[in-house]
């Protein structure tokens, strides 16, 4: 208690220092004047009174000093003094200060920037009340995490015991028609609970009602604030008016408040539509994001357990033949789920920047050590005139901290630039991409997030820590040296062995840390190269793609879409520069459906049964119009392509891929067989014709370049039953593809015009296939480029650091080398001496580094592709690289050492 009172008074005094000084002066002045008056009253000579009083009182300054001492924190005061001294002394040696600050700023900048990205994505709580109670439904399908299907959504909705509220949503694009030019706008299709769950402010009107969210419910819409302004000028009478999407007028029932961001969409949606999910809809497509609010007090584990039971109940008796498959529903904390695989990247990169910072610290520690040696005399003198050893060491530490704080300040200033670079490297999210894992909606918030208190305090803490780490080794050495008597050592020691140990440690640390980083970068580079060399099975060069939303238009039937495709393609083919065009429901590397199939020739045997379905296997399912394989240069290995004659009146046909042919017809000819597709998935599939297999095409990596090939079935667009087409185009806008003679983007405008004049609908999301492909590996490239940048920085820093340390040790040993030379040592001996020493340090550093890298590589395994974690090539190359760097860093100073002239060397003190 007593201690607290004192500390509190002292703390308060910190803020009224000037007042305190003044009070002390005034108080003593009053005292002295009273004493003088006393003397006068006693009859002393007025001219001598002042002097006599002074004499009596003694050293007034000392008294004041003692009074002041009562009020201050001695450590704070001294630290402030030391900091001021440090700044003065750094100003005297600007080149040292600049190099040290730049080095530290590099390390701190990388850390601060990465932290602000991580903060935006991982740490900053979602802007929803009680975000920790929100969970995302994740389907674990044999270790691959997927989004939810309508069936999953239903299960979650029924789990009222654990969830207070459940919603599903997905992003879509629709055509805004009616008055004005048609435009494609971003749509959030959300279930009734969404706006409530994400605490959306409803500015006008109301949120959706449960009735509006039923399958085949009414056409209603809620406007975003920006669309309300843009299309309606903020008109108050907008409620009840209609907005035409596709060709369907939607009644406007509400407007969402300005700037509302559920953080679930990469770009803010223009309009909100009810999801109207059909729980009977059990396609393989898992395209919903299901979010739930846990009941108060329900833990994640309890939720998972409940979902496990629900799945068991659903599968009871129906599960056969799927032995060994793992399938589970998990309730992941929402923020965690939103970060997806980004967390793994952040962990890896955080490790990398931490190592980089350590290398920077080691580098600066080397500089400080060298400087400390230059300042040995200064320190010895300070010690001699009474400074405690602790105080001197603290001075050194504070100097490092000051350097580091300046570096940290620079890092914060540079931060936004680095963050912009990070985020710029980070790929935009493709809303149609398979697997939500790649989507990180909040990453863009990192730009401009530098002034967040978490980022600033992180930066401060790390700067101070880096300063202490930097100062640690030099301080220990100075402390040890001071403990020996230094003042006598005015002559340089013959061999600076005592100082050398610190330097040796730094050389080893720097080399080993840098080696770890460079190996990690090497592994990621090889991963990227391996991905680039994957043959996707199609030719992505010179292919342009664009999407068109046909839902709610006359084109959403079998005949309608076939007509649209025929007309549209005829027009597109006439666009100069278009070689061949086609349409499809879904592109490779984006969403691809999966459907069960039954092989007609053995319809009764070997069936797998799940729920209402029985099938021989599951396969990718894509509807295409003729020319699809031509556009993508997918080889037709046997049989024929689809033609315009394969329409609704003709017998059903299908084309399968090579993988399917091999797996299901190992000893027979699939071209003599027929397929029954999709039975049991939904009523609409009952109308799907039994299809004759007419062709076998090459395999395509349509679910991702790094994923395994799987069976795939293609069917002609003109033969897909109405119900299936309607459901499909509602889930995904169709894709137009064209093979072009030159740069694909040159035909985008005429192609869009041609399509709009055919259909009256706009096309959007224009993408060269090359870019779609590059998007699908963008995450890996992001990791790779950042890691490479860090690796290069680390290599350079450590090379410079090691060179500097060895050069300095040579310079320190000038006298010793001079004596050796004078006593007859050959320059070659001296050279070998230095190089051998440098190399033995380097060898130790490399050895430790390799051990660290082996460990890191194992952790990184999941991020690698096409390269083993302990890839001998990478390890050999990197070790050689470091050996070369070390030899260079040793040879140059060694060469200089051989040119030392004995006479100058001996005279140099």
């Amino acid at each position, binding site marked *: 208690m007593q201690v607290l*009172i004192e500390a509190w008074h002292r703390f308060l005094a910190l803020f009224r220092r000037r007042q305190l000084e003044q009070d002390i002066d005034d108080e003593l002045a009053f005292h002295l004047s*009273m004493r003088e008056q006393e003397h006068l009253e006693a009859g002393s000579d007025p001219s001598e009174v002042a002097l006599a009083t002074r004499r009596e009182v003694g050293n007034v300054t000392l008294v004041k000093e003692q009074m002041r001492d009562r009020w201050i924190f001695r450590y704070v005061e001294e630290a402030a003094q030391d900091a001021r001294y440090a700044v003065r002394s750094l100003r005297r040696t600007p080149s040292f200060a600049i190099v040290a600050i730049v080095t530290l700023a590099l390390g701190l900048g990388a850390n601060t920037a990465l932290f602000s990205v991580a903060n935006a994505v991982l740490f900053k709580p979602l802007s929803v009340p009680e975000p920790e109670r929100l969970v995302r439904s994740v389907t674990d399908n044999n270790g691959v995490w997927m989004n939810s299907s309508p069936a999953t959504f239903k299960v979650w909705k029924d789990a009222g015991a654990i969830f207070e509220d459940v919603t599903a949503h997905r992003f879509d694009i629709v055509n805004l028609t009616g008055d004005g030019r048609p435009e494609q706008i971003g749509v959030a299709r959300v279930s009734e609970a969404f706006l409530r769950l994400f605490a959306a402010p409803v500015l006008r009107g109301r949120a959706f009602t449960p009735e509006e969210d039923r399958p085949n419910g009414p056409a209603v819409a809620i406007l975003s604030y920006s669309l309300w302004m843009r299309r309606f000028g903020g008109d108050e009478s907008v409620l009840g008016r209609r907005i035409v999407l596709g060709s369907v007028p939607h009644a406007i029932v509400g407007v969402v408040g300005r700037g509302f961001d559920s953080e679930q969409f990469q770009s803010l949606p223009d309009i909100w539509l009810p999801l109207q999910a059909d729980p009977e809809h059990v396609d393989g497509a898992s395209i919903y994001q299901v979010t739930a609010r846990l009941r108060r007090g329900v833990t994640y584990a309890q939720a998972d357990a409940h979902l496990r039971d629900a799945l068991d109940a659903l599968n009871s008796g129906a599960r056969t033949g799927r032995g060994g498959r793992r399938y589970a529903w998990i309730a992941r904390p929402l923020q965690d789920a939103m970060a997806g695989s980004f967390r793994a990247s952040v962990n890896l990169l955080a490790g990398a920047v931490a190592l980089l910072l350590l290398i920077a610290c080691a580098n600066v520690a080397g500089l400080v050590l060298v400087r400390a040696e230059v300042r040995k005399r200064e320190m010895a003198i300070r010690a001699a005139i009474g400074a405690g050893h602790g105080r001197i060491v603290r001075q050194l530490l504070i100097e490092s901290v000051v350097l580091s704080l300046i570096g940290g300040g620079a890092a914060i200033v540079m931060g936004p630039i680095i963050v912009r670079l990070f985020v710029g490297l980070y790929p935009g999210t493709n809303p149609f991409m398979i697997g939500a894992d790649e989507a990180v909606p909040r990453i863009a918030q990192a730009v401009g997030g530098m002034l967040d208190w978490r980022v600033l305090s992180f930066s401060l803490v790390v700067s101070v820590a880096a300063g202490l780490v930097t100062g640690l080794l030099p301080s220990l050495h100075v402390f040890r040296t001071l403990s020996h008597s230094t003042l006598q050592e005015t002559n340089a020691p013959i061999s600076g062995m005592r100082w050398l140990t610190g330097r040796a440690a730094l050389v080893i640390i720097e080399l080993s840390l840098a080696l770890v980083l460079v190996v990690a970068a090497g592994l990621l580079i090889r991963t990227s190269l391996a991905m680039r060399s994957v043959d996707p099975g199609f030719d992505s060069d010179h292919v342009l793609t664009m999407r068109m939303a046909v839902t709610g238009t006359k084109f959403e039937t079998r005949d309608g879409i076939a007509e649209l495709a025929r007309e549209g393609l005829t027009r597109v083919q006439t666009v100069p520069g278009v070689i061949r065009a086609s349409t499809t429901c879904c592109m490779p590397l984006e969403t691809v459906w999966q459907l069960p199939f039954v092989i007609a020739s053995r319809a009764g045997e070997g069936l797998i049964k799940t729920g209402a379905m029985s099938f021989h296997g599951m396969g990718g399912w894509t509807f295409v119009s003729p020319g699809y394989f031509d556009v993508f240069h997918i080889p037709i290995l046997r049989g024929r392509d689809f033609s315009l004659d394969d329409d609704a009146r003709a017998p059903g046909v299908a084309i399968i891929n090579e993988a399917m042919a091999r797996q299901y017809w190992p000893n027979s000819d699939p071209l003599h067989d027929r397929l029954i597709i999709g039975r049991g998935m939904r009523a609409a599939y009952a109308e799907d014709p039994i299809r004759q297999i007419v062709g076998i095409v090459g395999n395509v990596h349509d679910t991702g370049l790094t994923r395994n090939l799987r069976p795939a079935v293609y069917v002609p667009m003109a033969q897909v039953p109405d119900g299936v087409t309607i459901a499909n185009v509602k889930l995904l806008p169709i894709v137009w593809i064209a093979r072009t003679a030159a740069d694909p983007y040159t035909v985008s405008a005429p192609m869009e015009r041609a399509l709009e004049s055919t259909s009256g609908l706009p096309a959007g999301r224009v993408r060269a296939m090359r870019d779609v492909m590059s998007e699908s590996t963008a995450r890996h490239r992001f990791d790779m480029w950042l890691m490479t940048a860090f690796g290069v920085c680390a290599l350079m820093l450590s090379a410079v650091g090691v060179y500097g340390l060895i050069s300095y040790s040579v310079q320190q040993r000038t006298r010793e080398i001079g004596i050796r030379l004078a006593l007859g040592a050959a320059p070659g001996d001296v050279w070998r001496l230095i190089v051998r020493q440098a190399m033995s340090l380097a060898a130790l550093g490399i050895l430790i580094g390799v051990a660290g890298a082996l460990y890191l590589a194992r952790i990184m395994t999941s991020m690698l592709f096409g390269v083993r974690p302990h890839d001998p090539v990478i390890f050999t190359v990197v070790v050689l690289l470091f050996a070369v760097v070390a030899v260079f860093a040793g040879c140059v100073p060694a060469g200089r050492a051989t040119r030392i002239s004995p006479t100058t060397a001996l005279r140099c003190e």
Partner: protein
Amino acid sequence: MTGGARARIIPQSVMGETREIAGQLVPGTLDMLILKTLNRGRQHGYGIARLIQETSREVLKVEESALYPALHRLEVRGMVRSQWGVSDNNRRAKYYQLTALGRRELEREAENWRLVAGAVALVMRSL
């Protein structure tokens, strides 16, 4: 001596500082004398010194180099409170005043002193 209460001749140092002591004073009694003096009412530093000197019939002389640091120490420790006021001769002076904490401290120190003084007297008488 009652159980547990031990007389201290030199009070323990506070926060590592050794107390300055006035030449003529028994070591460690200055704080107590200041507190006792202030117990009569608020007073400035000069007044405290004068009062101690007068009350002790000029036996105890408090030096500035001891008095003022001691006053400030007591203030930091929360035993006294200070306030600027106007002195009898119309000058600005810093007045000190006892706090509740200081009053308790005074009682403790006085009790301590009584014990020590009595003990010392006993010893001196017996020899």
